[in-house]
């Protein structure tokens, strides 16, 4: 569920790059045996990572008992899905996602316009700041907002009471508003990243022509700029909508306590909070939601087919920058406000929370470092930290290697199996993390005992690779399709073997994309919660699970400490990504 957001972003960006439809024969063509073996290996790996959990999901939804136990096949799970309660949950999910997508889109368009098309000061820095929330694990902001907007002891309510002297608490994040608000913090920068290049790449003469025709700036914006952006905006909005349906953290933290049910938390509750666990119901719901998402994806594909305008002419130019005069400080303040609300407030809350003895009681004599001592002295924290790091490093590397191989086959060869490979790698794209988690849960449990994956760190690793594969394939595909075939062939003509060519040319030229993808996959693994929470067991907890457990025990103070440490990691990786790698890759 987490990584899948990014690959959509890449796939949108990719539609602009040249289609590789005229692929020339790959270099492995003549190595027939090696080719078959390589192809078979990729297919087996992908099948295990994507088709297997999917088929387990189907099996589970039709089978009456938990994994590995004798039972009968029936449709009870789907009958449960068709109850009034479940349908309401489904409607609720769709409604919440719509409610957050529309204001997010308005905000993202405003921000994209401000940063791409006006002379607002410090635009470069602002862009880094306002996209930061996209990289912060949602669980962090969820917990921070849980503290900020708590109706009893939340900092914002305390502040309000202190300023106005009243005793009412206007802000309660445990509500529909809270769920939507928390989703928006993530989806605004997500949408922004998707659409800002469309704003940036537009041929300015299309707008100038409207102004020469007598249209005011405002009319030009409505009749030309926005209309031209419409395909890109629709695509981005649908992705954001899907993302809202898949969202787990926001409804878990702010919806469940208030009795607001959505599909993802429904699945989670059916497995983790019901006794006995209602596995069949959970898998059925999971399968239904996948079909739903698949239909939305089809709809999107149909809607956008042939509707993408080429607004970019070959000539290099800078888009028309609008001079705002004194208003540019207003737009500047608007961007800063967004950053303050989405980053400074939650991170500040974590900072404050980590130094006071009890969350909610902010007195000078309550200052303490004991939470830091407790966290750094806790073996559970270190285990979670170690697991997240190992899973992040190994998982990101393996995911990118797999993605690189799949992308090479599908973009630069004409092998007959490549469409199948591409489709299989794309499957997790429409599986919310929690659904994939359920699929793997069944899958691992049904494996023979000689392969003890269930309950180990391997289970998480495989789930992460599966979730990250669509993203890695998109990143590497766009990298390969931009490389001219001449480079590859030239190297061969000059006597390099296929391996040497791969190593020296393809990898050397594609490594920046590899690195960008790697960092994105790493981010995805670090913030993954919904699949992890189903697949972890004692000993294989990751940081996000450690956080969730601390939170469930009411230990908000230590949550703040762990949250801050994760935040430092986020900033560190983002800095590396921007400073070292981004120079060559502009699309991410």
């Amino acid at each position, binding site marked *: 569920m987490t990584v899948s957001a990014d690959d959509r972003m890449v796939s949108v960006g990719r539609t602009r790059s040249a289609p590789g439809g005229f692929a020339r024969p790959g270099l492995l063509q003549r190595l027939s045996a090696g080719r078959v073996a390589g192809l078979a290996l990729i297919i087996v790996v992908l099948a295990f990572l994507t088709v297997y959990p999917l088929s387990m999901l189907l099996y589970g939804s039709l089978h009456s008992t938990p994994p590995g136990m004798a039972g009968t096949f029936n449709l009870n799970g789907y009958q449960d899905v068709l109850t009034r309660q479940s349908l309401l949950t489904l409607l609720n999910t769709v409604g919440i996602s719509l409610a957050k997508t529309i204001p997010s889109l308005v905000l993202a368009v405003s921000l994209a316009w401000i940063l791409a098309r006006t002379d607002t000061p410090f635009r470069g820095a602002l862009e880094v700041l306002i996209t930061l929330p996209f990289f912060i694990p949602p669980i962090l902001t969820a917990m921070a907002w849980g503290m900020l907007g708590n109706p009893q002891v939340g900092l914002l309510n305390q502040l309000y009471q202190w300023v106005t002297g009243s005793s009412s608490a206007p802000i309660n994040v445990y509500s529909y508003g809270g769920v939507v608000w928390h989703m928006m913090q993530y989806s605004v920068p997500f949408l922004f990243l998707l659409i800002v290049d469309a704003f940036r790449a537009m041929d300015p*003469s299309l707008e100038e022509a409207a102004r*020469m025709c007598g249209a005011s700036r405002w009319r030009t914006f409505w009749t030309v700029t926005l209309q031209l952006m419409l395909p890109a905006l629709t695509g981005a909005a649908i992705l954001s909508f899907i993302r809202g349906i898949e969202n787990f953290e926001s409804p878990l933290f702010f919806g469940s306590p208030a009795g607001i049910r959505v599909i993802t938390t429904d699945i989670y509750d059916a497995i983790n909070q019901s006794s006995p666990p209602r596995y069949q119901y959970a898998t059925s719901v999971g399968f239904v939601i996948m079909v739903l998402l698949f239909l939305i994806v089809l709809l999107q594909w149909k809607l956008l087919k042939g509707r993408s305008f080429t*607004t970019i*002419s070959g000539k290099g130019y800078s888009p028309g920058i609008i001079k705002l005069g004194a208003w540019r400080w207003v737009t500047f303040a608007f961007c800063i406000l967004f950053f303050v609300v989405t980053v400074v407030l939650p991170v500040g809350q974590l900072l404050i929370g980590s130094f006071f003895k009890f969350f909610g009681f902010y007195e000078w004599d309550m200052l303490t470092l004991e939470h830091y001592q407790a966290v750094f002295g806790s073996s559970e924290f270190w285990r979670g930290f170690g697991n997240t790091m190992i899973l992040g490093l190994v998982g990101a590397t393996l995911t990118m290697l797999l993605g690189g191989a799949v992308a090479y086959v599908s973009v630069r060869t004409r092998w007959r199996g490549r469409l199948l490979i591409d489709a299989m790698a794309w499957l997790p794209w429409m599986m919310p993390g929690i659904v994939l988690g359920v699929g793997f849960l069944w899958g691992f449990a049904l494996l023979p005992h000689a392969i003890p994956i269930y309950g180990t760190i391997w289970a998480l690793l495989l789930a992460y690779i599966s979730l990250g594969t669509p993203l890695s394939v998109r990143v590497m595909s766009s990298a390969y399709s931009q490389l001219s075939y001449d480079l590859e062939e030239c190297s061969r003509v000059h006597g390099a073997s296929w391996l040497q060519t791969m190593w020296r040319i393809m990898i050397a030229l594609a490594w920046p994309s590899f690195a960008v993808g790697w960092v994105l996959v790493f981010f995805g693994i670090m913030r993954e919660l919904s699949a992890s929470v189903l697949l972890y067991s004692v000993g294989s907890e990751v940081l996000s699970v450690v956080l969730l457990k601390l939170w469930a025990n009411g230990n908000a103070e230590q949550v703040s400490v762990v949250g801050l440490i994760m935040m430092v990691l986020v900033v560190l990786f983002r800095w590396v990504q921007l400073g070292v790698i981004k120079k060559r890759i502009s699309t991410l």
Partner: protein
Amino acid sequence: MSNVVLEKVSRNFGDFAAVSGVDLRVSEGEFVTLLGPSGCGKTTTLRMVAGLEQNTGGRISIGDRVVSDADRGLFVPAEKRALGMVFQSYAIWPHMTVFDNVAYPLRVRRTPRSELQGRVLTALRLVEMESYAERPAPALSGGQQQRVAIARALVFEPALLLLDEPLSNLDARLRAQMGAEFRSLQKRLGITSLYVTHDQEEAMALSDRVVVMQAGRVLQIGAPEEIYQRPQSAAVASFFGSPNLLPATVVGCTRVDEREFEVSVRGAWTGVCRAGAALAAGSDVFVMVRPENVSLAVGESGLDNGRAVLSGRVVQSSFHGARRAVTIEVNGNVVRAEIPALAPIAEHVSVTFDERAAWALAP
């Protein structure tokens, strides 16, 4: 329709002067071309007239209205100037049909629906595109987009038409055809036009007058023939083709009429030629001779009834179909000639040209 007057118009980007002190008057119905290499400020000048760029100095008026005056802080934005403009990329909106593209300026002006249809079709008929009205804009070829762009710029009968390298994205044959079509349309409608190009042949073929620009300044303004035959400086001369510039020293100078002087020179070439300004005796000049005015004769000979003769050795000769380009070394100077392809040629040739084709320029 309208006079356009630019007075001391300048545009600075920080310390960089993109355009400095441009003075220009365009009469009603005139077709004036701004010509120069890329980065010479011609497009910036056009955009300042359009109102898409603000001039940092000077004054621009269109008709009897001052549209921009840097000293008074007056600036009329583009949409209030009511000018037609054709962009290099045509800027045809891909989300509209051809009809909607052309109707846009009328809709902005709240033209009644009854009138709108007829005017759009009239404009499309002018550019022979009326049968394409319902086509979506992306389904057009480059030349067709060009026509639609012109129709859109003309449909509301603007006082002035601005064209920013409108032909540069077309292939060579279409470029010539579209250029000629547009020129005849412009003459028929009598619409004042300001045109920007870097293509000297296009500029000469289309314009009433050409403004040659370089590094943000106007080098010369004049009819195409005048600029070609009687350039005011070596820079202008070099901009059209690659003329021969032979160094010489002035011996004497007499006025012929209001515009021309007769100059006798001595140097790489010795003889009598014309000049556009009085040149002091003893000063160094270049004698400009266009390669197509140079003729060659096999062998060496002396003076040939009134024509100056130089002897030289052929260094290079290349065949270009109708013409042959020959490079000859004459006493350490290089002379380029364009001669008929079938003309005889040998290693040693004598180089001749009509004195009327020689034009003296101060360096």
